[in-house]
């Protein structure tokens, strides 16, 4: 797994600016007072327990949550006024795998709004999609049904759908959830490659050591931002306890940061009476899923 250095920020305009953002769904606050800046070329991991507002943060950038306070600006404009040029990859488990679409049909959905009222696609759109599918190594699967693929290939289908509109920003909801270790590394390599080609990436993850520790920067969330920065600075026992409500020792060794995840501790704490149970602190993601 490569460990890319964070991109140097020149005098570029920020890609995304969240300022004092409080947002949620149907009157229920899922995230409060979030201030966060994403620059072109950033690669950011969002960490936090279930229901901590990770997905909500992604969706706020896309302009599909209710904003109660503060503001969201994507390239200087509110995403509700102008749809941001961002690609979105949902969690694989939200996909209806029995739906009758082929790989190509699924990827071409990314072109829907480039030409919405014609039943066929422009030739140039088809070509772009074919190039991206080839680049992601799923070109030969174009006519297969989406359920006939492996986990990594399925992830690539929806990555391709997000990439056909050549976005500057890619938002991914748990791209490594539910896949095996090799697929996870493949997906992360692919994302690093895209990032090196200049695409800013924001992804949510549950995997601290395998994924988040290898990212240039991470944000710890639990309905608000608890810490943001490079993982070696953010991963401290204090911040992790605030985020997950569990004791998680941090080991620094040979330039590596390792977090000891001890889920059994949480269970023992729960029996004694939880100090802070993250599962009850908000259900924005459950509500959506």
């Amino acid at each position, binding site marked *: 797994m490569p460990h890319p250095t964070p991109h140097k920020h020149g005098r570029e305009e920020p890609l995304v600016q969240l300022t004092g953002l409080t947002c949620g769904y149907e009157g229920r606050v899922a995230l409060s007072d979030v201030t966060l800046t994403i620059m072109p070329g950033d690669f950011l991991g969002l960490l936090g327990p279930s229901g901590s507002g990770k997905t909500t943060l992604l969706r706020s950038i896309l302009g599909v949550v209710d904003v109660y306070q503060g503001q969201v600006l994507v390239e200087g404009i509110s995403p509700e006024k102008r749809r941001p040029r961002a690609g979105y990859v*949902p969690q694989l488990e939200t996909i209806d795998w029995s739906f009758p679409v082929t790989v190509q049909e699924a990827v071409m959905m990314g072109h829907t709004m480039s030409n919405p009222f014609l039943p066929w696609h422009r030739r140039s759109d088809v070509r772009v999609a074919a190039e991206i599918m080839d680049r992601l190594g799923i070109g030969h699967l174009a006519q297969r049904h989406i359920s006939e693929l492996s986990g990594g290939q399925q992830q690539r289908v929806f990555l391709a759908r997000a990439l056909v509109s050549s976005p500057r920003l890619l938002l991914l909801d748990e791209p490594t959830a539910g896949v095996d270790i090799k697929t996870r590394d493949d997906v992360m390599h692919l994302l690093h490659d895209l990032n090196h080609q200049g695409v800013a990436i924001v992804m949510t993850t549950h995997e601290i050591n395998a994924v988040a520790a290898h990212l240039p920067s991470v944000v710890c969330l639990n309905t608000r931002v608890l810490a943001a920065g490079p993982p070696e600075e953010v991963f401290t026992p204090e911040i992790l306890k605030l985020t997950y409500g569990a004791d998680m020792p941090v080991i620094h060794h040979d330039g590596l940061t390792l977090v000891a995840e001890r889920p059994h501790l949480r269970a023992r704490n729960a029996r004694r009476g939880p100090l802070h149970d993250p599962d009850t602190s908000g259900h924005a993601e459950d509500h959506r899923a």
Partner: protein
Amino acid sequence: MLEPFQYEFFVRGLLAATMAGGLCGLIGVYVVLRRMAYIGHGLSHAVFGGAVVSYVMSLNFFVGASIWGFLSALLITLTTRKRTIGADAAIGIITTASFALGIALISRYKTFTRSFDAALFGNILGVSTGDLVAIAFVTVAAIIVVIVGYKLFLFTAFDADVARVYGVPTAWVEAAFSLILAATIVVSMQVLGVTLIAAAIVIPPISARLLTDSFKRMILLSTGIGAFCGLGGIYISYFIDVSSGATVVLFSAALFVLALVYNSVKGKLPAAKARRPLGKASGLRDK
């Protein structure tokens, strides 16, 4: 064999049933893929209430029932989006209350019981030229909407939530869908009957799904199967003297069994192998 074709009422009924069957098959694809099979069932009952109300208020049947049906459909699609309420329960209330209103009005004003027998169970003898024109109009309109909105409808049916993120005006797509669905039910009522429309909406697309993995082919197949069932059902009903709606539905159920057998023999069950245990794997991680 050609004997029934000398009767004008039969030819009219045959045309009406073929178009209504195809129309229900076409719209049914979206109903089935969005897992809203119950909506067709509920909506046809709701439309029945609208039909009676428009009769009592001496409004035009098509206009009154369509407006009523459209509002119910809109209400239902809006309720299904809210996950906090039990959507199926809410739909049950909306549609059965509407149906009950129809029944209540009928029992209060006993004058028109006979024509509503046709509305409940379908009566091919009752198809007038006006009905035929209405069915043709809605069929053409539905085909145009499905062609023009092909990509929008596909993305919305596949994943409405993500479609919205990609800029698809899902609220408009849903409204258009509700309108076409309500119109379909209103014009098909005379041929198929309120109680049997649901089957005409669900059976053709499910049979088509068993035969193909492609969305485009599923639409074409489902429309074809629906039209064929309308045609075949009415033709058979002439000889065996059974209610038209019931014959059409029994005929399509038989075709469904054939599709199921074909699918099992071919050994490819797309629906069965499709759900990979992805949810389970990531669900464990949350524990």
